[in-house]
C-alpha cells in the first residue's frame, strides 16, 4: 500500500517546513500533518494513525527514540523514521534495534522520495 499520510514530529518549525517541502515535492498527494512536541504527536496518532512517522531525535522532554516506543504501542507496525544530524553508530544501532529507519538530517527530497518508494509495497 502506498504511503498516503505522514506525521512529522519536530520541535523546530523550520525543520517541519523543510520536511513538508521535501514530502510534497516527492509526493504532492500525500497528507502531511505535523506535531511540535511528543505530546502533540501522541494525541495526533490517537486521532488518526498515519502511514509513516518522521521523528526528530533531539526534542525537549521526550526524545525521538522514546517517543517512537510510545507510538509503537498505539500504532504497532507503522513504519517510523528517526531524523538526526547525529549519525553516530551507537545512536543508529539503538534506533534500528527498535525498528526505526535512520535518516540523516537535513533530508533531501530525493532521499525522502527513495524512502517512500521503498515503503510502498
Amino acid at each position: 500500500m502506498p504511503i498516503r499520510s505522514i506525521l512529522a514530529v519536530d520541535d523546530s518549525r523550520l525543520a517541519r517546513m523543510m520536511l513538508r517541502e521535501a514530502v510534497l515535492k516527492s509526493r504532492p498527494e500525500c497528507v502531511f500533518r505535523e506535531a511540535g512536541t511528543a505530546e502533540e504527536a501522541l494525541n495526533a496518532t490517537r486521532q488518526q494513525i498515519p502511514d509513516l512517522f518522521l521523528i526528530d531525535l533531539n526534542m525537549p522532554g521526550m526524545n525521538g527514540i522514546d517517543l517512537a516506543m510510545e507510538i509503537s504501542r498505539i500504532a504497532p507496525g507503522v513504519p517510523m523514521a528517526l531524523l538526526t544530524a547525529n549519525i553516530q553508530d551507537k545512536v543508529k544501532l539503538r534506533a534500528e534495534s527498535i525498528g526505526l529507519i535512520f535518516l540523516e538530517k537535513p533530508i533531501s527530497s530525493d532521499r525522502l522520495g527513495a524512502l517512500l518508494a521503498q515503503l510502498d509495497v
Partner: protein
Amino acid sequence: MGALSEFEQDMLRELLNVGIGRAAYSLSRMLDEEIVLSAPFLKVLSRQEATELIQNDSDEPVAAVRQSFDGPFQGSALLIYHENTSLELVRRMLKEEVPLATLTELEQESLMEVGNVILNACLGSIANMLGGELRCDLPEYLKGRCETLLQQPAGRVSPALDGCGGSECILLMYVDFSTGGDSLKGYLALLLDMVGMTRLRGEMSHLMERYAG
C-alpha cells in the same frame, strides 16, 4: 534593530542543532565512544548579559576557542568552558588519569581540537542551510576573564564593519557534552555586529520564504 522573532530563534536553533549533531558524530569518531551533545537553549544577549550569564557570580577564568568568519555575514564563534570544566573535558578525552600539570599542558591543544570540530560543524551547518559559504579563519585559543574575551571585536578587525561597539549582540547556546552519563556544560557564542546580525536575518528571511511556499 528589533529583537529576533520566535520563528527566527527557532530557525537559528535548528541550524545550530544540526551542526551540534554533526559535531557529536565527529567527536564520537575521535574518542571512539558515544558522545551526547545537546544545546537546549538559545538566547540573544548583549555582551554584558552574556558575560553575567556565563560568569554566574564566579571569578573563575574561562578557556575558549574562537573562530572568526566572513561571507554573507561576518562575526566570530566561540566555544567557552570554565577552567575546571575545560580540564575535565581534556581528562575525558585522554581517558586516563594524568597529573594536573600534564592536563594543563594539553588543555590548549585538546580544547582547540574539540572547538574546531564543534565550531566548524555549526558554521558549516549554517552556511549549508542558508545556501552560502562562510570562510573561516584558523581557530585560536583564548583564556582569561569572560568579560575580556567577549569584549573582543565580533569579527576580523575591520573599521568599516566593526564600528558598532555596544550594538553588537551575542547568540548564546548551552552546549552539554556528555560521555558515559556525566555531562560537561559549556557555551557556544556567536558574536555578530549590527551589520552581521542584519545580514544573518536577511539570509534567514530568504530561507523562510523558500519553505513558506
